[in-house]
């Protein structure tokens, strides 16, 4: 899998802005390469639509923006678009007490075990929980 192009420049002169808020900073040209979405990315998209829809109403899209915008620069720059989404969704499900960390970890462990048993390759690693937690 090719390493995606990521913005890793230090935010020179950022003046305390959040990591996502880069308007006017110098990042050079935008990478406009198109790419197909992976199945998991489509599933993340669908999951967000279902969770924020009127039927479930688990949280508003603004809450997901808040979680993503609270990421530090290192985390913001080292994750892809849908990685940001799924991590924020996971954290909000815990924050809203829809699932517990333990339930999510147990499900991930079960999926990993099933994949190993079927000889499929596991990609990626565990994602830390350090930014979970509601405030206000």
């Amino acid at each position, binding site marked *: 899998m090719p390493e995606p192009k990521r913005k890793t420049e230090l935010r020179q002169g950022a*003046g*305390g*802005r*959040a990591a996502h*808020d880069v*308007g*006017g900073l110098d990042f050079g040209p935008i990478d406009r390469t198109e790419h197909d979405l992976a199945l998991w990315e489509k599933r993340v998209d669908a999951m967000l639509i279902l969770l924020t829809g009127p039927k479930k109403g688990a*949280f*508003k899209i*603004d*809450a997901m*923006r*808040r979680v993503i*915008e*609270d990421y530090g620069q290192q985390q913001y720059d080292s994750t892809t678009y849908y990685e940001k989404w799924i991590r924020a969704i996971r954290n909000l499900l815990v924050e*809203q007490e829809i699932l517990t960390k333990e339930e999510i970890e147990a499900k991930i462990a079960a999926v990993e075990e099933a994949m190993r048993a079927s000889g499929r390759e596991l990609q990626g690693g565990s994602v830390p929980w350090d930014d979970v937690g*509601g*405030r*206000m």
Partner: protein
Amino acid sequence: MSAPAPRFRIGDVVRVDSRMALGHCRTPFFLRGKTGVIVGIQGAFHDPEKLAYHKPGLPRQVLYKVRFKQSDLWPNYRGKPHDHLEADIYEHWLMRISAEARSDSHAA
């Protein structure tokens, strides 16, 4: 529920607050502290800064289309003098300033 009455009218000269924001807000950093003119009233919407914390988002905030001169936004801007940028800014981020100060430069 009736919509809140807009505090500003089209043509008013406003400055974007330069406060720091925690959590989620929709006022881009590069526009904070900048002066522009109201060119549209987009309606009243639930406050995204409160929705971000699972609150009802009330009172609703009037959203304005604000026009800025590019040369006011970027040091050493080299484009045409009348180039401008428009952005949607919520009312609680805007302050009215004296219209005379900038009355010459924002004609649509």
